[in-house]
């Protein structure tokens, strides 16, 4: 495509009513099927603590949701409030579907070529049909859906070039769960890569990259062992589970978790890890392939951008070196690949020949 035509497309977003506009709502329904496939009938065991531990006894990791939820526990028991958690989980899942839909719709609108528009529409279908939605839907009570929602909000703000707002939105994530930084990595890498080409707004972009990471470090640093012991002791959690909660979740450090993973999980179950990777990651690769197909011809630094895209999509997988919920974290790379696909097609993030 001539450079001038590309430039025109950017200047005047196309508002065609193409077949893909009709396909997107249909494809979003596939996400709802995924949700129905995975949805648990109740809270997943071991997720209760997110809702029961709060800042009442001092600052603790993963205490934000519990602190927000705590007032409800004064009027209703936790069991009575379980449907509230269930409903908010379903709403968050639906919101993720809608947010992805809108992100892809905007990406499609920017494209003039029919084949690129169709490829993006089918990439959205692939995202909706992947194991992402069943896995998210299954983990009722876990906070992954809220982390991903926050990433999507912050990413949206990045695309709108509202970097300070994005930084603030992303900084909420580590208070919910410090693993948020792994989900933030793809956006951070794209922003860092954009800094190498577009110097404008460098400080605000750096703030967006760094603030969530600093907040996560502060959350880990400020976490009080005493407070978490008191919070666990006071929480209406099964007594046998309390010890495991303290030992396995809160007394675990990144170093001990890494040692455990290497000594047991990767050592004993490496073939299983490879099987799971082979099953869960093809959608991630397909989304990256779509990114290359749709956008690589415009990038000024083609192969370097492709490498950055690959690394950014794979970056959330770093968490499996310290955590063993394998499928839960494998689908994070599918989310990352979707963000990368949208990101590398956004002229404000990746330098194009039109800019040159």
């Amino acid at each position, binding site marked *: 495509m001539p450079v001038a035509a590309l430039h025109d497309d950017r200047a005047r977003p196309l508002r065609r009513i193409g077949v893909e506009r009709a396909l997107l709502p249909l494809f979003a329904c*596939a996400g709802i*099927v*995924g949700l*129905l*496939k*995975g*949805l*648990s009938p109740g809270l997943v065991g071991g997720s209760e603590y997110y809702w029961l531990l709060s800042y009442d006894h001092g600052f603790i990791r993963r205490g934000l949701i519990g602190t927000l939820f705590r007032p409800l526990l004064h009027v209703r028991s936790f069991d009575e409030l379980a449907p509230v958690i269930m409903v908010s989980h379903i709403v968050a899942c639906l919101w993720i579907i809608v947010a992805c839909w809108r992100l892809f719709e905007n990406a499609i609108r920017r494209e003039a070529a029919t*084949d*690129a528009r*169709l*490829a993006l529409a*089918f*990439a959205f*279908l*692939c995202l*909706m*049909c*992947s*194991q992402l939605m*069943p*896995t998210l*839907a*299954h983990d009722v009570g876990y906070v992954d859906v809220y982390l991903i929602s926050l990433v999507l909000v912050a990413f949206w703000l990045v695309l709108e070039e509202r970097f300070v707002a994005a930084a603030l939105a992303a900084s909420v994530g580590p208070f919910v769960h410090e693993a948020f930084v792994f989900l933030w990595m793809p956006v951070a890498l794209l922003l860092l890569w954009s800094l190498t080409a577009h110097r404008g707004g460098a400080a605000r972009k750096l703030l967006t990259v760094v603030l969530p990471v600093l907040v996560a470090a502060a959350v880990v640093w400020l976490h009080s062992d005493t407070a978490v012991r008191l919070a666990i002791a006071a929480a209406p959690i099964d007594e046998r589970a309390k010890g495991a909660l303290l030992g396995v979740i809160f007394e675990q450090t990144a170093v001990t978790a890494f040692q455990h993973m290497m000594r*047991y*999980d*990767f050592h*004993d*179950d490496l073939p*299983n*890890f490879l*099987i*799971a990777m*082979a*099953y*869960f990651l*093809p*959608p991630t690769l*397909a989304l990256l*392939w*779509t990114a290359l*197909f749709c956008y690589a011809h415009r990038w000024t630094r083609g192969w370097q951008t492709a490498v950055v895209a690959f690394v950014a999509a794979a970056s959330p997988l770093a968490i499996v070196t310290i955590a*063993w*919920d*394998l*499928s839960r974290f*494998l689908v994070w790379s599918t989310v990352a690949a979707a963000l990368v696909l949208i990101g590398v097609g956004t002229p404000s993030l990746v330098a194009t020949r039109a800019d040159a």
Partner: protein
Amino acid sequence: MSVHRLHAWVLCALLAAGSVFYLFAPGVYAYFSEAGMSYGTVPKWFATTPSARITARVFDRYNARAPRASRFNSQLSCFLSDDGAKRRPGCTHELTAGRGVHGPTSLKIASGAYVAHFDFAASDGCAAGEALLQVVTTGRFGRVLAEYSGPVSPGERVELPFHLKSMDAALGAVEFRATGIRGCALLGFVDWMESPAAASRQAS
């Protein structure tokens, strides 16, 4: 047709085919040592699709060395929940009419041919009776894999061969059940092992 257009068609076809595959595949929940699958609330015919069979096949041996299954097997009777049966010292269970035990919770094992053993003991006032012994898979796609109904006496070992198919292993958890029918039977040790015939086939 240009190379670019051909590339587009190949990519879209692959995305569509992959999407259809994953759409009908079960939700897979994998840890490092164990994996489970579910179809939640979608129609049951999803489980008859090639996607379901392929996914079950891919993860077929995933649970073969699950530490949780080994722990259950070494002291299974301690992991059985009482449905009215009276628990006795040493994880034995008194089965009287209509009262039984079931468990363990969420046992995932690889597909294959197995034999379940139910050993019976005796205690004061609980010597012999009739019992219903079952090996089942639980959940939405659950079914009875093997069953014995009849008299059991102290010192007797009832062997129940069962074959766990790939889809049953994928979509359900294996559960052992024992329910008293008449008299009083004291269930002692319970375990399962790979069927000797299947094991020797594998070895050869």
